[in-house]
């Protein structure tokens, strides 16, 4: 396996120091920043971050240091414990705020104000501070205090209504995609604020809404603006079928399933015919099928076409199919439908050095993580360390950044502050 980052220049954001108190709704923001090189210090209460309770767990052991959710979203970060609800903890936090660039948080609007740690209070200590607040609906407005788990973000952003089978309920995208949107767009907004500051502007309090972040979804909104038509759940699985009664798009093959976009814009049915002919099935291809609009609207013929494709796909593995479809000059759009195991074994991802092998010394193991989403060769993004264990960097951070002595730290620990 090659690596993207043979030499080890610093990540693009290596000069930024971040205090991270974001829950699941916003933690992807700080993971992105940390993997881009920022020094992200995760603050958790001495009782442990609630995120550590989210499974699944390594070896199925529900130990707070073994949550895969915690591991995944807190890569490349340092970790300290700090009780923000104690006066001493608040004082320490205020001292930290003077030494850093960014705070990212996702508490209910008003919570930090009640602790005396709201933006105005923090700004008085560090006028260059950027505070990024990530909440379901934003800091103000009628829903500001409503609860917003991922599925609520999906429901209230317009995409979900038209998604799924017509005979079932609307379907939310898998893998917490509204949390994804909130975190990724928050990272974008945060970096804009960093640029503003570097260009001579002040710090600011960024108000990110998950609902608004998830609402950036496609063509439905600007189309409604013109037609006043609401899209419905019309297709069994809108996998690039291109409108109209769809030609089947998902087919079993030897080792799983492939997605085949027979009627996607840009697909030439004659190229599909040629592909079949290359594999001895040309005789069975009815020339009338070249008229895809006709084929779509002719159910018995559609079934015959799909049956031929079924027999073709059944001869091959899914990666073989993708390969033979795209190595032709006149390519055919066949894609392997892969699961996590396939992704982990993907020759493409391995060849590109996408994965990061991350040591977990206390387990005596190195574990393979999916790497950052974009390659930046001059300032590599990468996972620089596994997620912190509870309080792992208390000495390092409180010592290095605040100059606390071991004795002072011991006292804070005794008082339950750290």
């Amino acid at each position, binding site marked *: 396996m090659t690596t993207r980052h043979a030499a080890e220049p610093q990540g693009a954001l290596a000069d930024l120091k971040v205090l991270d108190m974001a829950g699941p709704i916003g933690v992807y923001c700080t993971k992105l920043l940390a993997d881009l090189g920022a020094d992200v210090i995760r603050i958790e209460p001495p009782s442990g971050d609630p995120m550590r309770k989210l499974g699944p767990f390594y070896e199925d052991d529900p130990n707070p240091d073994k949550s895969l959710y915690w591991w995944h979203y807190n890569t490349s970060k340092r970790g300290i414990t700090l009780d923000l609800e104690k006066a001493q903890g608040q004082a320490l936090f205020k001292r930290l705020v003077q030494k850093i660039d960014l705070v990212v948080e996702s508490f209910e609007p008003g919570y930090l104000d009640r602790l005396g740690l709201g933006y105005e209070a923090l700004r008085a200590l560090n006028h260059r501070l950027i505070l990024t607040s990530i909440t379901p609906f934003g800091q103000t407005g009628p829903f500001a205090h409503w609860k917003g788990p991922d599925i609520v973000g999906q429901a209230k952003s*317009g995409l979900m209504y038209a998604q799924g089978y017509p005979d079932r309920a609307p379907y939310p995208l898998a893998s917490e995609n509204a949390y994804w949107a909130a975190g990724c767009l928050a990272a974008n907004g945060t970096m804009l604020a960093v640029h503003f500051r570097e260009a*001579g502007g002040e710090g600011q309090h960024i108000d990110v809404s998950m*609902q608004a972040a998830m609402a950036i*979804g*496609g063509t439905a909104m600007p189309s409604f603006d013109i037609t006043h038509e609401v899209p419905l759940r019309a297709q069994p699985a809108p996998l690039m079928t291109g409108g109209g009664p769809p030609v089947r798009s998902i087919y079993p093959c030897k080792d799983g399933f492939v997605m085949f976009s027979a009627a996607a814009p840009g697909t030439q049915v004659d190229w599909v015919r040629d592909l079949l002919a290359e594999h001895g099935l040309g005789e069975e291809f009815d020339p009338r099928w070249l008229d895809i609009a006709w084929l779509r609207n002719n159910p018995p013929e559609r079934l015959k076409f799909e049956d031929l494709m079924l027999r073709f796909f059944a001869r091959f593995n899914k990666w073989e199919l993708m390969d033979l479809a795209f190595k032709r000059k006149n390519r055919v759009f066949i894609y392997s439908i892969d699961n*996590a195991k396939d992704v982990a074994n993907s020759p493409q991802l391995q060849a590109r050095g996408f994965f990061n092998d991350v040591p977990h010394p206390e387990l005596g193991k190195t574990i393979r993580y999916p790497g950052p989403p974009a390659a930046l060769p001059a300032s590599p993004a990468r996972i620089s360390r596994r997620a912190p264990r509870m309080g792992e960097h208390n000495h390092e951070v409180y010592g290095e950044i605040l100059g606390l002595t071991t004795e002072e730290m011991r006292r804070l620990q005794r008082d339950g502050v750290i």
Partner: protein
Amino acid sequence: MAPKLPLEGTRVLDFGWQAAGPLCARMLAWGGAEVIRIESMVHHDRFRLSPALVPGHEGSVNVSGPSNNLATNKLSASINIQQPKGVEMVLRLVEMSAVVVENYSTGVMDRLGLGYPVLKQRNPSIILVSHTLMGQNGPWERVAGHGPSAAAPAGWTGLSGYPDRDPIGPAGAFMDFNINPHHSSLAVLAALHHRRKTGEGQHIDLSQYESIVGATGTAVLEYTALGRVRERAGGRSPYAAPQGVYPCVPLVVGDREEERWVVISVATDEEWRMLCHIIDQPALANDSRFATFDSRKRNEEAIDEIIVAWTSDKVAEAVELRLQSAGVAAGVVETVKDLLTTDPQLAARDHYRKTVHAEAGERTNDGPPFILPASPITLRAAPILGEHNEYVFAKLLGMTEEEINQGYADGSIG
């Protein structure tokens, strides 16, 4: 002097077409960069004809709602990059730009004479961001398509849907419209930060395939660390029970009914007790089948039946308000109409912004999902194709009127 916007003075050349490239560039335009779409009147971005089109402008490439929504705050210059003269104009613009955005298939920029080595020669600190399906190299480099195609090998598609039925795709190319462009715009913002410190540019290689893996959460790690392959969960969550999408009273619109749905998600025992109280079934709170999270998880379908019976004769907004007021997470499954016309929260945030477009008239656009109070973002309507030719050719490139006319005549402009 302090700027008004974060990226003031940063020039971006936008060769994007379809969605991913243009949306990456839109983020930079929102941030105050001067983003110039480099377009062709002859081979224009097909997305400029993407429906819906404002009626009454047949044949216009300037009235697509979706296309204009992706081009707010941008300029447009028409240069034919299939002519050497056009390529030279672009390279002169590259000399005075910070970023070039493109999402052609692998190798196209090189064939046009606009590959990274050439750009770098003209401007050593240029940042080029390329979006391809699979990335710039590797055994699957030739595999091409839209974002939803890459979602299949990325493991995203297989996770969406019910275990007993085919996977469900996104109702819109969510990958092209959100996941990929915003992963790449973040990479550009990071690269600009690096450039400010070091003067160094780079070629950002965004593989949509890799980017979409980044939106599958912990799925890959569950395999690499646990050897476990996650299956489609039918919209269930490991972190909430009950959680589902429940039918409400349909809305009568003219002579037809519009379905209404509400999502409800219960994460804690306290929320469960509150839900039982609100649906007038306090006894359920003491029912041993539902007493703990794990037991609720096991009996999710039984709970769903009870909730469906309660929601079915109620108005979705009323269910949402009652539950949220009592601290139980709920949300109406909103249509785009709801978002634009009735959602009081988005209205309070002034989220959608109206602009007046030269041809398309007063239209609604996406606003940024974040508020930056010290550097507030205002929106300008998308440009019509070639609207800023005068600015680009005369002001930026210093071409005389005669040279510009010559460009129109020989087709290098246009």
